[in-house]
């Protein structure tokens, strides 16, 4: 059986498959020395920022199609691609979405923002207790960061869709393989990075999920079971130049096993 290829022997397999183009790419990869400059993909990753202030100009439709096309080739669990998109480029529709989410935040803060009341007051104590119980039940949603944002949205100091000219709603097919919400994160990452490389600014909007409680608006938008709004991505041209320098961020523990040794890196 000498003509059977040993599947374990991938070195051989790679050589067999190599044409000119892949050969060149492999050389480029092997050439990268420690400390080498960022390539274009790395640049896009490092200079992407969440953009929350947009110019009025609408990005051309073909660029939105172009970034969605990059999403189409994202990896997904079992290749199930559990996503679909609603692209909203009508100002009135985006304003209606904004208004609804703001109203939800106002209702929420009325019941849970104890900081609206004097320290020591009875009202404050009552609402604080309410908030703390909710926080216990759902620590991720009542984490101080989203809480601060919800408070600011309610007071009109922070926006939900940031007056973006284009909003892409990412819908998740709840029947997807494994954890379909992870695939939504992956498809969205392709979209925001592609946008960055084309000079478009983006911002993820998790608060877009608030729209789900408005059945009429969902119907109008074209959101229906088994799909749900998972996330949104605002797209437009940013003001200023937020890509002029990468930022500083915390490092994270990396446990590194090699040569029978365990090391902790940051």
């Amino acid at each position, binding site marked *: 059986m000498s003509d059977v290829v040993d599947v374990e022997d991938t070195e051989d397999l790679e050589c067999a498959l190599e044409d000119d183009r892949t050969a060149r790419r492999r050389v480029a990869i092997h050439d990268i020395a*420690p*400390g*080498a*400059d*960022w390539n274009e993909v790395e640049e896009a990753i*490092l*200079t992407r*920022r*969440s*953009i*929350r*202030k947009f110019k009025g100009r609408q990005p051309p439709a073909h660029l939105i199609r172009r970034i969605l096309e990059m999403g189409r080739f994202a990896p997904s669990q079992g290749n199930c691609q559990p996503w679909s998109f609603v692209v909203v480029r009508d100002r009135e529709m985006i304003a209606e979405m904004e208004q609804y989410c703001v109203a939800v935040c106002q209702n929420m803060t009325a019941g849970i923002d*104890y*900081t609206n009341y004097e320290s020591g007051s009875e009202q404050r104590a009552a609402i*604080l*207790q309410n908030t*703390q*119980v909710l*926080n*216990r039940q759902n*620590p991720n949603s009542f*984490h*101080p*960061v989203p*809480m*601060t*944002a919800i408070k*600011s949205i309610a007071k009109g*100091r*922070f926006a939900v869709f940031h007056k973006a000219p284009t909003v892409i709603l990412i819908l998740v097919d709840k029947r997807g393989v494994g954890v379909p919400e992870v695939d939504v994160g992956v498809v969205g990452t392709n979209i925001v990075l592609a946008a960055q490389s084309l000079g478009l600014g983006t911002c993820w909007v998790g608060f877009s999920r608030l729209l789900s409680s408005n059945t009429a608006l969902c119907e109008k938008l074209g959101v229906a079971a088994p799909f749900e709004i998972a996330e949104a991505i605002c797209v437009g041209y940013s*003001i*200023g*130049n*937020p*890509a*002029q*320098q*990468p*930022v*500083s*961020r*915390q*490092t*994270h*523990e990396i446990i590194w096993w090699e040569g029978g040794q365990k090391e902790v890196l*940051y």
Partner: protein
Amino acid sequence: MTASNVEKAVVPPDHLAIWDDPREALYGRVTIDLETCDGCKLCTVVCPANILELYGPKDNLKVRIKEDFTGCMSCNNCYAICAGQAVIASEPYDFAGYYEQKRIGKFEFPRKF
């Protein structure tokens, strides 16, 4: 306010956290270089927490942190937009009353390995 002058809350297991006491919920902190800041206003416009504001005479505007500030998440969008790199967040938020930060190290710019 810096981490060093805030005594973190000791959190017993049945503790229910509050978010307007810095011992329990300490937000990100930014440093501003007043010599470099030219008052261009960009950072105040892009800051998602809306905690930065301009002050001073018209011909010598500078940026500062609002008195009533909460919500800085150390995203450094202010740093990214500032041509003179006059404003920077270099410490993460720390919500001691909610949970202990684990497995994180200090702030670093992108490192070329």
